[in-house]
């Protein structure tokens, strides 16, 4: 296994960093994608003289599109890449190995997008009608296709589907959530672009209100496909693994909240759009449009958090856990330990009272730090503060049963014990001296707990009903899941 240096973000969780950036990027990218479509439509209105103000709007909107979403979208895209490396180099490594030709293909579309985009921006008022339409079409087509390609990789992480059977790249690409996710994102892009268009029409559109109103009436049409969102959303949820679905639908408070935020914000936008379309002579002011755009941002945020969250405990389902440990390596690591090959020292090595605590700190770094801090957001010291020492031993040894969205513990009893000691030492206020423990009976108990759950993923245990904490219930569940596996 290749070891990478792991950053300590102090009290901030890594997931927050990538989540936060991801939202920005997705929102900007979707604005650009929907923007391409809406511009094609307005160009058609202009050419066919159906809308007198369309020409002026196109120039202004494209300028805004380029200024905001084009470069910012590209840079945040590169930033996503760098951040993914920061969070899990092993995950991105697997994805690059598996999908590099897809990414390379996507890149050829980026190139079209930039060239066509700048060609339109600089020369649109000097091009013939036909040429304008053509260049704009190239731009719109390329930006939608960039969604098409990346969507396959993102949805693969949640539902690798038939890829698991024979590692066929295309099976992984056209995975079970590929289509619902693509359709959903397309509709979301159109909605975001429509709202952005309403903002631009108010700021940089024609001076006469009826001309602006005319344009807004057209732009709002791009909100209409939102009516299909529930369908695509339901399809997506149906194609998701049952456990992931259950996190989002009540199983996990945070994720349910984010889903609620996404659905709620979309619903508000949808209702407003419906009212707007039905009422004759309606108008959306710049202020309202900005507010709606902010709501759309919240909807995207909710969606992205759920997408990142429901993969737990995996970064690539059934292949790699969120802490970058491969499912297939667990069995071996239960014997060898998780830190044995780690060449990176602890930065704060001197501050620990003994070597066992140092081992505990390394175990934490390798296995837990991607989702937990020591003290802070989802902090381990706080989470375990009320537990007795044996509860800590048991619950950490049986990590996947403690919470099914955690991976199984990937080490022998001495690593569990080292981590338990670390947490004890920290909650005792980090005294300068702390005894090392090596009670064989305790280690044997830990081994027993480790063996009881084995390396079966928690979601598997959950599926077979092993949430009850008795050994008998657990054994029963294990027996069922094993016989099912056969």
């Amino acid at each position, binding site marked *: 296994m290749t070891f990478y240096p792991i950053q300590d973000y102090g009290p901030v969780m890594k997931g927050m960093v990538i989540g936060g950036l991801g939202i920005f990027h997705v929102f900007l990218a979707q604005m650009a994608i929907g923007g391409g479509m809406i511009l094609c439509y307005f160009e058609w209105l202009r050419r066919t003289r159906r809308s007198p103000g369309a020409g002026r709007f196109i120039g202004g909107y494209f300028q805004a599109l380029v200024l905001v979403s084009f470069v910012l979208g590209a840079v945040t895209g590169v*930033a996503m890449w760098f951040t993914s490396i920061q969070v899990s180099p092993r995950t991105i490594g697997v994805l690059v190995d598996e999908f590099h030709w897809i990414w390379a293909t996507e*890149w050829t579309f980026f190139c079209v*997008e930039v060239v066509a985009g700048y060609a339109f921006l600089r020369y649109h008022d000097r091009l013939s009608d036909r*040429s304008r339409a053509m260049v704009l079409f190239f731009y719109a087509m*390329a930006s939608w296709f960039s969604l098409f390609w990346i969507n396959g990789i993102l949805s693969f992480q949640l539902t690798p589907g038939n890829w698991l059977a024979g590692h066929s790249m295309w099976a992984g690409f056209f995975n079970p959530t590929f289509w619902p996710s693509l359709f959903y994102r397309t509709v979301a892009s159109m909605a975001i672009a429509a709202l952005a268009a309403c903002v631009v029409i108010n700021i940089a559109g024609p001076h006469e209100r009826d001309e602006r109103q005319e344009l807004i009436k057209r732009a709002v049409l791009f909100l209409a496909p939102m009516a299909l969102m529930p369908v695509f959303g339901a399809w997506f949820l149906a194609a998701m693994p049952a456990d992931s679905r259950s996190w989002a639908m009540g199983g996990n408070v945070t994720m349910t909240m984010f889903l609620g935020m996404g659905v709620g914000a979309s619903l508000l936008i949808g209702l407003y759009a419906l009212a707007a379309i039905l009422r004759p002579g309606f108008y959306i002011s710049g202020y309202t449009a900005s507010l709606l755009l902010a709501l759309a941002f919240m909807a995207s945020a909710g969606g992205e958090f759920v997408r990142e969250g429901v993969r737990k405990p995996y970064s690539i389902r059934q292949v790699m856990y969120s802490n970058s440990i491969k499912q297939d390596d667990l069995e071996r690591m239960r014997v060898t330990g998780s830190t044995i090959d780690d060449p990176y020292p602890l930065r704060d090595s001197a501050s620990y009272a003994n070597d066992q605590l140092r081992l505990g700190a390394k175990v934490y770094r390798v296995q837990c730090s991607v989702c937990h801090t020591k003290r802070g957001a989802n902090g381990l010291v706080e989470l375990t503060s009320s537990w007795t020492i044996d509860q800590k031993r048991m619950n950490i040894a049986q990590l996947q049963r403690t919470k099914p969205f955690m991976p199984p513990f990937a080490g022998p009893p001495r690593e569990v014990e080292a981590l338990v000691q670390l947490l004890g030492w920290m909650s005792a206020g980090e005294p300068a001296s702390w005894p090392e423990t090596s009670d064989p009976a305790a280690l044997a108990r830990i081994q027993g707990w480790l063996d009881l759950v084995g390396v079966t993923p928690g979601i598997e245990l959950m599926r077979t009903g092993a949430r009850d904490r008795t050994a008998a219930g657990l054994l029963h569940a294990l027996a069922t899941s094993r016989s099912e596996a056969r």
Partner: protein
Amino acid sequence: MDALFPFGFPWPTAMYLTFYVVTAAIYAVFMHYTLAGALVLAIGRLRVLAHRRASRGPEAETVSLGLLEHVVEDWLPVMLGMAITAGVAPLLFLQILYKQSFYTANLLLFHRFMLLLPALIVAYYMLYLQRSKKLHAWGPWPRAAAVIVVALCFGYTAWAWAENHLLSLHREDWGEFYGSGRWFFPDSELWPRLGYTITAAFATFALVVGWQLAWGRRGHDPGSLDLAARQLRLLALLGLFASAFEAILWYLWLETPAQAALRSILAMPYGVLVFLGIAVQTACWLPVNGGARLTPRRLVIATAGAVGTMLGAVVAREVRRLVALDLSALEESHRQAARVGGMAVFLTFFLVNALVIAACVWIVKRDIAPAR
């Protein structure tokens, strides 16, 4: 390593190396333009400031940028967009080729490296700002400041990439670097490396602007065109001589194994190509004493020379990296990567989209032609 690059490697390694080298060379054209362009523009703005101080009175108002700076100012945001986009492809192949060392350097430098992204965003908006009418009304100072910020941002970006590259080569330092929590990786090779990039950037830049001026010839006033052509010649020659010097310096800086590899059949022909290209470009630029000399024929020959220099330099740089890394482990991982599907789709769309791009350029050129 006893065959010409990339032929001595197993085919998956050779293939990814080829893709990397070709896409990196394309990217470098745009990167060179932004880097040198920002410096040229910054100097231009400072010159305007100096002139105004020297010649107060009504005349001061008329001091402004020359044609060269105007073209650069106009195109810099576009070129930055292109550099960012073009950079994605080598970034991808880099990860297949050198996964562990690239990721580790990224992780170790962390915010130091990632800061280049906000820096690029700042640079991009500064480029728009410095052209805005509002800023214009405030006089020349804020605009000069804006362009200097842009140049600093690009300089920082170049430094971050070079430092990241060097750290990725020094596996023996990783553990200590991490443990100490240091921010900087001071390796003296940084200087000839960056020195080469920055000086070579001016030669590439001069050539691209040469093409831009030649294409737009009829729209420009002949006097300004002559001046701009002579300025380009100066920049090109300075860049060519200085980069030849930096290339030799860089070579001397390297340790013996790397030097030996560069002298071997693996890289030697590419090294020769670098200097041959420099010679061809020098010969093309020397007689350029006015706009009329920027003929397509001259520019085509200079471009051929520049392609040679660029490819040669990118390959030589790669050989220096290959010497530092454990090739046998890499070759196995390349073999694994080469098993996955999708290459045919990539090659197809590479071709199709290259045609689409060509169509875009052709359409625009055709439509704006009568306006000249």
